[in-house]
């Protein structure tokens, strides 16, 4: 029947047309974004995937080498070194950032006079230009004139070389990331804390729960989706976002102690002009981040609690 109507009118059945029209109009509306995504995100990603199978030194045309870059990568000691350095910084900086951010958020969630001023003060470092904060910390950690050593001396402790010491350079970077890295997660924690119903705390108090038990049994479970969000964002950022900090302070030194993955990738792409190999490194980074995120989502089922969710 519908065939005969279509053949008579030369058009599709009337009831499907509004859907098609809406679809087309919808696509038209998002077309600018789609163009941007295809050209500036998906296109380059696809391009870099293709390049990862080539030897491309920019000035000469790309040469297909199949898995040559991946073979080179397996034998490249700096690949492992940079991966280790990144994992080290990530492993220490992300949990530390989250813990401190949560602690500060709890403090700033108290009903105190002038709390908004403190919220602004704690949030400000995250808004500071990265180069400026990196230079600032470079001076704080100066072995001869830096505030950090002045502080150690005041405590009667021996001075150290901070960023210029192979063993202390990575912990120093972790400390710097803590300063600028707690602002945003703190703000998100603060929003999460304000969403925890007061009635739960009141009920727990009536049942005799103290401050710690209320935190452990109410605040943390209710905040767990927020913690999870901050954790995912923190891990992704730790693999990608410390470029400016490391480039300005140590350039990957001393003796490659702070050669993080993204710096190594930059060196390969824009100093050595090995775009094929750099693309391979980029895709490995992408896979690492995807796998880590996947693991986090897998583990999240065990500890993230969503209000109203039914547990199996």
């Amino acid at each position: 029947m519908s065939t005969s109507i279509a053949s008579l009118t030369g058009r599709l059945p009337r009831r499907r047309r509004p859907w098609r029209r809406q679809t087309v109009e919808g696509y038209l509306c998002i077309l600018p974004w789609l163009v941007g995504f295809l050209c500036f995100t998906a296109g380059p990603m696809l391009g870099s995937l293709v390049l990862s199978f080539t030897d491309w030194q920019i000035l000469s045309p790309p040469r297909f080498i199949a898995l040559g870059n991946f073979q080179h990568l397996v034998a490249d000691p700096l690949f492992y070194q940079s991966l280790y350095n990144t994992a080290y910084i990530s492993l220490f900086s992300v949990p530390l950032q989250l813990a401190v951010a949560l602690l500060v958020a709890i403090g700033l969630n108290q009903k105190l006079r002038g709390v908004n001023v403190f919220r602004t003060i704690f949030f400000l470092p995250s808004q500071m230009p990265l180069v400026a904060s990196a230079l600032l910390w470079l001076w704080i950690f100066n072995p001869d004139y830096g505030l950090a050593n002045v502080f150690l001396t005041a405590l009667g402790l021996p001075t150290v070389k901070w960023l210029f010491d192979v063993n202390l350079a990575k912990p120093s970077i972790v400390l710097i990331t803590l300063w600028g890295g707690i602002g945003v997660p703190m703000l998100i924690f603060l929003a999460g804390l304000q969403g925890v119903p007061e009635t739960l705390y009141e009920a727990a108090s009536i049942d005799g729960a103290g401050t710690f038990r209320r935190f452990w049994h109410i605040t943390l479970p209710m905040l767990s989706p927020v913690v999870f969000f901050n954790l995912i964002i923190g891990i992704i950022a730790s693999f990608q976002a410390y470029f400016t900090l490391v480039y300005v302070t140590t350039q990957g030194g001393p003796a490659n102690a702070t050669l993080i993955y993204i710096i190594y990738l930059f060196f390969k792409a824009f100093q050595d002009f090995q775009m094929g190999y750099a693309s391979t490194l980029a895709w490995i980074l992408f896979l690492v981040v995807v796998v880590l995120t996947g693991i986090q989502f897998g583990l999240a089922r065990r500890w993230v609690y969503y209000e109203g969710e039914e547990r199996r």
Partner: protein
Amino acid sequence: MESAESARPRIVRRRDALKALSLAAALPLLQACSSGSPSASPQPTSPSASLSQAPSSAGASSAAATATQPAAAANASSANAVKLQGAYWSSSPEDHQVFLNVFKAFSDRNPGVSVDFNDIPSDSFTQKVTTMIVGGTPPDTMELHPAWVLNYINAHQLNDLTDMMKTDRQAYIPAQLDFWTATGKLWGVPYYSGPSFIFYNKSLFTKNKVKLPEDYQKEGNWTWDTLREISKQLSGGSGANRTFGWDAAQDASNLQFYTSVPIWDNQGELVNQDETAWLLDTEPVVQVMQWHADMYLKDKSIPMPSDMQGISWLFRTGKVGMAWAGKFRSIELANAEFEVGMIGTPKGKVGPINRDGPNASGLPVGTKHVPEAYKLALFIGSPDAAPIYLASGRPVPVRSDLIASDVFQKSLKPYERIEVYQESIKTVRAWRVPGKGPEEGRAFTAEWQKVLVGQEDVPTAMKAAKAAMDPLLK
């Protein structure tokens, strides 16, 4: 039925509009996407093909002469205005102005030819120029540096200037041409020379009652060992009053800028003759690096990286006795609060053998105006540009006729000695870091830093550096 018929044209109009919109959106999308493809990188055209567009090599080779004569305006290019794009880096606003003045002088002598100065910061210069070349819009002339010029030569991205320079090359100091010669061909027109020498803080010498380098030189004892001995005597104090004897170019792992010189003077070589292996673990090289390690760690006469943090040149603060330098540093000392002295490179078992950090103009393949670009390249280092270019106080001339000229003499500050420049440029050995320069530099620095933090001894570090750097020569 009627309503259906009247509705149809409306639907058609909407469809047409949608089609038109989609097409309009898709076209730029396709265009934008296709331009980013690596296959879009231009295949290098044969240099000879490009040069064949030039009127003649003879015409080009006489460009130095024509550049001096306004009559040259009568050439074909004046009929159609030519705008050259010159990619160079300036070191300061004053230096930027010097380039602009030189380009204006060139345009004045060559009516119809103007120069668009693309001033690209030195630290991103190769990135940007490479992008321009790959994007199919190379500059007409580009600054070249020995640290990376081989990348462009090996990728066939520079025009061969051998024939063009056949006549003009006689005017140049031979070592200055050697920097830009590879596989028997010439790829750059020199315009800037920066042979190394030593600035010293005469006031600090006097204060510490240390004999001046000139005195040692007169006795024939101006050697690297003497330099170390003097450095020890000039080092001492603590905190803000601490002084150091020797600023080893701020980084003793900089093979191109500094470390090659004491190694050559110690009868050592950095790479073997056919540039297939580094010789970092050989005795003369290890000796020199051990010498430096001892100065850093035992004598404490060379400042550590942390001592120089945030200071562009520690010597200028008056806390350093002697500093490896080039003429480009001279301007920075104009207002120094101490008396400045100047001495040439010390000798070792042999020598002195000196290094240079020269610059040349290259003509990238794809340059549309080869003859004009070549004229410009010649002009910057020529006697016509000298009153502007040399007066900037930064370069040492690349031409034999300018090294003893009044123009050069006038460009010197009171503490600069022309005989030191003349001697330094005579002893220059043209050397370029072979292989993958930046990667080799990072590998060498990483191993050297292990020595400075006491993690490795010098022989071990040199062996490790060689192991890391040898594959990068291939």
